[in-house]
């Protein structure tokens, strides 16, 4: 007796978003970076949009799928790069989860795309740095790099945040996609973004 797994619309959406993130990730890997470990991280825009529109769990799926499949395609699976990337993504997701908790519990300090992006970027860099420190270069001189790395993380985090903010707004505005996002949106965020058009 065979059973067919029914995939839901949410599954399709997550797969689609993950594919988008993977594509951006691979395209970005072609660009050289000024400092090792410093990347614009544009694929994180997709993670943020997923977080804002579908919630934290969906964002976890998209982010981890991106790290896994991206590394498989580029060819860095199970290399040090992969572990650093995974550590960064995990820290980022954890920090985002905590921030979502704060944002919903304390409405007065609600967080928008920019805030989430900054948290995600800096947590990502911090997680990646400590993974590098514990696993590969346990030398205190490495900490000389930390201020520089975190500065870059903040700057790129702000850039990603602005992009994510714009993308989310346009997605919520578009009539074709509105019904798709009706279930499973982070409700407060969704309603506030919709208000903008009035």
């Amino acid at each position: 007796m065979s059973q067919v797994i029914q995939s839901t619309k949410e599954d399709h959406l997550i797969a689609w978003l993950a594919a988008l993130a993977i594509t951006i990730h691979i395209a970005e890997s072609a660009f050289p970076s000024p400092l090792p470990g410093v990347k614009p991280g544009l694929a994180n825009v997709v993670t943020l949009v997923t977080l804002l529109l579908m919630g934290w769990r969906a964002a976890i799926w998209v982010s981890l799928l991106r790290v896994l499949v991206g590394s498989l395609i580029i060819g860095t699976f199970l290399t040090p790069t992969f572990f650093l990337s995974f550590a960064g993504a995990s820290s980022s997701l954890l920090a985002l989860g905590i921030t979502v908790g704060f944002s919903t519990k304390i409405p007065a300090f609600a967080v928008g795309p920019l805030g989430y992006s900054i948290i995600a970027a800096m947590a990502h860099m911090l997680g990646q740095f400590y993974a590098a420190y514990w696993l590969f270069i346990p030398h205190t001189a490495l900490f000389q790099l930390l201020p520089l790395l975190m500065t870059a993380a903040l700057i790129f985090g702000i850039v990603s945040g602005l992009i994510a903010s714009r993308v989310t707004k346009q997605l919520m505005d578009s009539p074709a996609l509105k019904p798709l996002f009706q279930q499973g949106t982070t409700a407060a965020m969704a309603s506030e973004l919709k208000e903008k058009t009035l």
Partner: protein
Amino acid sequence: MINRLSERYLGEKLFTGDLVILLAALIVLVMLYLQYWHSNANGEQVVVMVSGKFWSNLDLYEDQVIEIPGKLGISIVSISNGKIRFRSSPCSTKQCIHQGWLHQGGEFAACLPNEVSVQIVGPDPRFDSINF
């Protein structure tokens, strides 16, 4: 329900939480720079070695000019403001002079042809060891 603090030029909304996070991030950044870039491990004494043997201990807090006799001739080091440098040396490449001022614990300069070296001993050396 959510405070609108400003309308960004791109048309996005800035939430209160965003500003809090941005402020916190800037504070963290400043603290990181202070912690890891502003080292206060200044040295107090300099050990001068000639031909691999101890020659003298100099006090970094006492401005002075010392002539050190080495294999090729006399290297002159000068100490001022808690810093030390090679001022002149009989070597051909003058690498020792190009090292400039040393002031942190563990810092090291040497005139290899003349077999003269100075190393700062301090409370918290920046490097455990240097290999050539």
